[in-house]
């Protein structure tokens, strides 16, 4: 293949730097899955419509299907495989497990990555479309069910686990505060 269609890049994923050669058309999602074998990140639509491919890029949520791998150089990527602390599950993972915040499990990695970031976004005072008072000096709002539903709406779940996911995110948020 002519050299112009491929690029040598380095990707920092889950704290490790990987040097790889990718087709310039390769999305970050496909690079994670096909080049690095990190298949926990799922492809549900490849169009940024379902959220199954959500990862954290520098701590913020990103749909990895809408980003080219060559453009992800320099970002610190966290995938579902990097959410737990070794064998110790993250409080969000623990809550999904115990409260049955999933069924088929296919949207779950994206939901969990999203939830981890939602809790941080909320703690940092970011408003959502469900926040009544969005002035910079407004009092912080609790991460209640309406806030969680709004903030998690980019992650579709066709099995219909939303009710349990909302509970799981709320519980993990409470626990994160206690341990923080």
């Amino acid at each position, binding site marked *: 293949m002519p050299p112009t269609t491929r690029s040598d890049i380095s990707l920092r994923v889950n704290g490790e730097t990987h040097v790889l050669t990718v*087709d310039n058309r390769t999305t970050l999602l496909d690079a994670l899955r096909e080049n690095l074998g990190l298949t926990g990140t799922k492809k549900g639509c490849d*169009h940024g419509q379902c959220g199954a491919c959500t990862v954290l890029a520098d701590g913020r949520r990103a749909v990895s299907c809408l980003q080219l791998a060559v453009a992800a150089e320099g970002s610190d990527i966290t995938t579902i495989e990097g959410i737990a602390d070794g064998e110790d599950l993250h409080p969000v993972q623990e809550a999904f497990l115990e409260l049955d915040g999933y*069924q088929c499990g296919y949207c779950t990695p994206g939901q969990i990555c999203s939830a981890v970031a939602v809790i941080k976004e909320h703690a940092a005072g970011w408003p959502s479309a469900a926040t009544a008072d969005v002035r910079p000096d407004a009092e912080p709002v609790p991460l209640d069910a309406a806030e969680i*539903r709004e903030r998690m709406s980019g992650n579709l779940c*066709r*099995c219909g*686990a939303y009710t349990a996911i909302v509970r799981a995110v709320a519980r993990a948020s409470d626990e994160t505060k206690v341990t923080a």
Partner: protein
Amino acid sequence: MTDLTESISAPPVGVVGTSHVRLEGREKVTGAARYAADVPFEGLAHGSLVLATVARGRITSIGVDDVLAMPGVLGVIHHGNAPRLNPEAGLLGTGDATLQLLQDDRVPHVGRPVALVVAETAEQARAGADALVVTYEEEEADLVFSADHPGSYTPAAAPEKHKGDVDAELAAAPVVVDQRYTTPQEHHSAMEPHASMARWADGRLEVVDSNQGSFLVSYVLSVLFRLDPGVVRVRAEHVGGGFGSKGIGPQLILAVMATTELKRPVRVALTRRQVFATTGMRAATDQRVRLGADSTGRLRAIDHDTATHTSTIHEFVEFPGEVTNALYAADAIRIRTSLVKVNLPTPTWMRAPGCAPGSFALESAMDELAEAVGVDPVELRLRNEPEVGPISGLPFTSRNLVGCLTEGARRFGWADRDPRPGVRREGRWLLGTGMAAGIYGAGSLPSTAAITAHPDGTFTVGIGAADIGTGARTALVLVAADALEVPTSAIRIDIADSDLGQAWFAGGSRGTSSWTWAITAAATDLREKLADIAHIPADGITGRADTAPLIGALEQRENHAHGAQFAEVAVDPSSGEVRVRRMLGIFAAGRIINPLTTRSQLIGGMTMGISMALHEEGLRDAQFGGQVNGDLAGYHVSAHADIPAIEADWVPDYDPSNPSGVKGVGEVAIVGTAAAVANAVWHATGTRQRSLPISLERILTTTNA
């Protein structure tokens, strides 16, 4: 005849009925669970589909050479070089031409696969598929289904069914409701797009697939490709949802063709648009329901007519009349279905086939009858409770719809409801409540299972079950633990592998009832064998069962799961927005094996029901037949923000016709949801919504602000 009722009248005590987290839960929350497209293979090639762009016609040329010259392209499979398939192959044992891919130059509908481009990488395959030029000779297509279509006929699979003289009862009834209800094409939209890997290894065709029943898929595949059934091995360890769409998908057939031709392992993963175009949908329906009642609301007649559509290549019949078959008693009942063949893809089963669209019509009509006779909707249903099958006259295995209705009404606070529509306002919102009943068939289908006892005191259960998100894996271990009288930690389970032998698939709400029976029977066989020996040899002792003769000996019964759903909605008549504020479902679905996962599945069904009520509508271009909204942005399925806190619970029920007392819960929970929401919208606004989905524009064009 086998009478199981006496021998198992008292449910055994054990872990069944207690909540357990999913056995595969840790893998699912850490990303370790591998789905079909996640499994790596040495030397894997990738296939990308090319779909027909015309609604009817003939392929005149395929520009293969240009694509073969592209980087990485290994081959192009098309009707000129594809392996010949056996036309007798089909999931139900008869030929389904939907499976006959790349067999000739005919195009029966837009989206029919016409070629597969295989390349070294997925990007190269996609580029090749995008570049492949296919030309067609177009023919006039018949694209629009309507109830008065001149091609309508009564399909042999859904003949008229009736009892009594419906016309006479309707003529004599003092109160008659006569309305039309329509439901659109709906798409399963499981989060995992269909994907398959196929390769030949050691003389066997090995398949890693996303399906609802690996044994059935392997069998149909062997018929389709004229192979010895033992040659084919299909596995589907984790499946990202199915809802009826994951039988034998086009990606599987094409992957097998490609690996056979190219001698490489080939993975074919559908894009989301291809999932919409090629994996079937729930057919649209146009239903007329006529209810005749006396002044107290007692039904004298139910007349349920459905018009629906199928493709020109295979007759699939959506059968909404199923819901009328056994829900209410009436002096006369008639169910009729008419079908039209149009140049659209073949529809297929989608969660609660028949009953989901059928209940929207029947349960909306019941609400209209309640209004007409001035009887509370819950009370109306209690007054029409049948003692035996309304048409068949057969006894029910068990039936606790009354419990669902009364317990649901109590918990929802239904008794305080003011029946008048359009009188509750909260700011810009009009508020209302509604309810509906639901029913879905239950029963067991023949399955085999094996359980091996090992010398270390552990056991391995092997059964060709599928876990598509239902929690089957976990539930089956609970049942096995009780049957063997050992803790769950002593049991390991293998599922979703065709080499495990015949078993019913995850469909028709009959998975758990079928598989648990095979497991309890295998446990009995194993315990008998263990009683005769002193020591377990190193390779273990295996007990086996095949439930076919046991099931064949069952007496005929009306066997159904039941439910009652209650919804509170808020409607903004100035924007057309409908918000479901709360929803409660109470079900009678046999014995509940694992309350944690059962509740999830019931809530999941109700969630999909809300989506059906408010959002889902597959739209097609009437001139060209293409899908206008074939992706998850255009075809909206309920998101987090659409769904309130839904509650699901159950009342006592026990199916005496299988050893575990199980009925299925996969489908009954979507039956009635849309009607409950629609009835609540009427209660809020005073305007009936007889077409789904209840979209913004439907509210705006029918409701006075």
